């Protein structure tokens, strides 16, 4: 363990001077506070979902509308994207050629978009079965919780695209580095929220 390890969440960079390190630490701790408050929002939507689970009013039920295959595929895609983002952070930290950083960010973006396509397809399948947010309390809470995570992933994808442009235009300077680290925290955090989603929403709904 080197001295710079564990100053802030996520991969710690080796900084040329103490000032840059302090700046990075403050910036990332602030973002970490935001992520934890975001976690509270998700937790309360989980609680709402738990309460509404049986309010199906004779409409579609969880076991009727969820499918285990797409849920597993989405999970694996999101997990892999977390890993590829980790490889992007490592490439940035150790001054690998810029195209390697861009490559891994690009792979992560592609996986994020693939996840979104699959999720939207899931929602459309549910709509086709009459499972719309207006149908019951259960479906309202489902469509408040799961698409909110999807919206976060969409925002993350947009951020990834902006990040790639910044890396090309500005090069890897101090500001770009901090932004990549922040995006890394955001992306890994979304993966943690998804663990809650597939466990509590999809798998619980599919248990017979």
């Amino acid at each position: 363990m080197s001295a710079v390890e564990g100053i802030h969440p996520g991969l710690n960079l080796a900084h040329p001077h103490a000032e840059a390190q302090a700046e990075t630490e403050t910036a990332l701790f602030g973002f970490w506070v935001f992520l934890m408050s975001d976690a509270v929002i998700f937790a309360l939507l989980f609680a709402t979902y738990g309460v509404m689970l049986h309010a199906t009013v004779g409409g579609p039920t969880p076991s009727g509308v969820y499918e285990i295959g797409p849920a597993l595929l989405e999970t694996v895609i999101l997990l892999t994207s977390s890993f590829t983002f980790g490889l992007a952070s490592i490439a940035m930290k150790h001054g690998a050629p810029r195209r390697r950083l861009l490559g891994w960010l690009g792979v992560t973006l592609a996986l994020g978009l693939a996840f979104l396509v699959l999720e939207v397809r899931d929602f459309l399948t549910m709509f086709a079965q009459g499972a719309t947010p207006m149908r019951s309390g259960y479906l309202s809470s489902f469509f408040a919780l799961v698409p909110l995570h999807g919206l976060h992933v969409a925002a993350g994808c947009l951020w990834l695209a902006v990040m790639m442009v910044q890396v090309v235009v500005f090069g890897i300077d101090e500001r770009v580095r901090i932004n990549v680290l922040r995006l890394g925290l955001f992306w890994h955090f979304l993966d943690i929220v998804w663990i809650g989603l597939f466990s509590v929403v999809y798998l619980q709904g599919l248990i017979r």
Partner: protein
Amino acid sequence: MTTANGEAARETRTYAIGYLLALLLTGAAFGAVYWQVASAATVFGLVLGLGLVQMIVHFRFFLHITLGKSSRADLQLILFSTLIIVLMVSGTLVILFNLHHRMM
């Protein structure tokens, strides 16, 4: 620079271990539901337990939150948020299920 390469290799290994553990835990949770390995309540408990372990794996290997002194503030914030979440979520569930029970 051999030291930098060694560090990069070590960090890559950390992410790879985290990825592998996450895949195994995910596979176990989906497998338990797919093959219905036990009664519904047991399977649900198993899925929640595996999910919790996987969250810890993600915090440790992807977000590098350790028990070390320097990341104490981040860990404390996670634990405090967890406390808030547990209070609010369990409070919501207890009150509303109780209400539901009384309205029956």
